[in-house]
């Protein structure tokens, strides 16, 4: 069974259309492997102040609610644990802000099955569908790629892209302990450590907001370094 985990924090405006888009790919997923359907969509409302919870509920999906805001990494781990205990074979991570295209899930699933992959990560740089702001493309992303490589040992074309699909086997080996945005680097580190078979797939990203700026990037770096000094492994 396919589980799609959607972490959401104050996304009342976009969550409905995102969920309807995901519900609509059911038939295409069934064509790849009918055992993956019915799709279970799990929204993790990360302590939103707006109507994210009720909007998601009205779409008829499973909605888990964090009583207080704990960060995207924490929300994803909650979704992962729910998916694993409810028999997920594959788990997709998909952002709630409407920046991803649900059709990319189908394409990525197809490639995953064809190549026998454990994990696929989305990349904005494998095709030209995403219009990335120039400062992000020219400055922030190259630096982030370098930092990601230094921490994880994997040289990827993109970083901190929230689109990923993991098999059950991969998910059993990956545990997100970084509650904030540093979970992206943490996941990549664990993929490398556990020697999981990985590929990047092209995804389209629509920029509604700028996303991680320099301050966000510095916070991620700080979280990663702090954790390195505070504990082993």
């Amino acid at each position, binding site marked *: 069974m396919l589980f799609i985990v959607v972490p959401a924090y104050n996304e009342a405006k976009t969550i409905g259309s995102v969920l309807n888009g995901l519900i609509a790919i059911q038939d295409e997923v069934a064509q790849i492997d009918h055992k993956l359907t019915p799709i279970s969509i799990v929204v993790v409302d990360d302590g939103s102040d707006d109507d994210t919870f009720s909007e998601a509920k009205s779409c008829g999906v499973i909605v888990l609610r*964090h009583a207080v805001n704990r960060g995207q990494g924490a929300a994803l781990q*909650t979704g992962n644990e729910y998916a694993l205990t409810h028999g997920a074979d594959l788990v997709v991570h998909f952002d709630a802000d409407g920046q991803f295209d649900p059709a990319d899930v189908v394409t990525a699933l197809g490639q995953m099955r064809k190549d026998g992959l454990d994990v696929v990560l989305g990349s904005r740089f494998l095709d030209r569908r995403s219009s990335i702001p120039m400062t992000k493309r020219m400055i922030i992303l190259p630096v982030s790629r370098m930092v990601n490589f230094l921490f994880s040992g994997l040289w990827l074309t993109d970083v901190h892209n929230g689109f990923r699909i993991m098999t059950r086997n991969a998910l059993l080996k990956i545990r997100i302990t970084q*509650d904030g945005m540093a979970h992206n680097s943490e996941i990549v580190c664990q993929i490398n450590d556990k020697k999981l078979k990985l590929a990047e797939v092209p995804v389209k990203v629509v920029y509604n907001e700028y996303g991680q700026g320099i301050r966000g990037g510095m916070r991620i770096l700080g979280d990663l370094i702090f954790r390195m000094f505070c504990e082993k492994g």
Partner: protein
Amino acid sequence: MHLSIIQVLLLIFFIGAILKVAGWYLVKEIGTGMMMFWTIFWLAAGMITAFPGVTSYFAGLVGIGRGADLIIYVSLVVLFFAVFRLLVKVERLSREITLLTRREALKEGDGQKK
């Protein structure tokens, strides 16, 4: 014994701190161990303030010229360590809050129909 104004001010502050510690202990905001530690700490600070010559003796033992320098070095090390410990503690608390939040969310989610 002649005390300078700064010594008098510091001693008043330390007495206030000891009274505060005693107050917290009486209303059970801190335990006996904590009360003992902070009382001894502020008493020691008071002794050093009243008799600064004592620090010169210890400074000489470890190869530092002045007693005041020894106090600054030791204070800096202790403060940095305290900040580090606090950060680690805050991190651990934060993780525990996440685990609790997750447990509640999953419990609530198990009651939902797919």
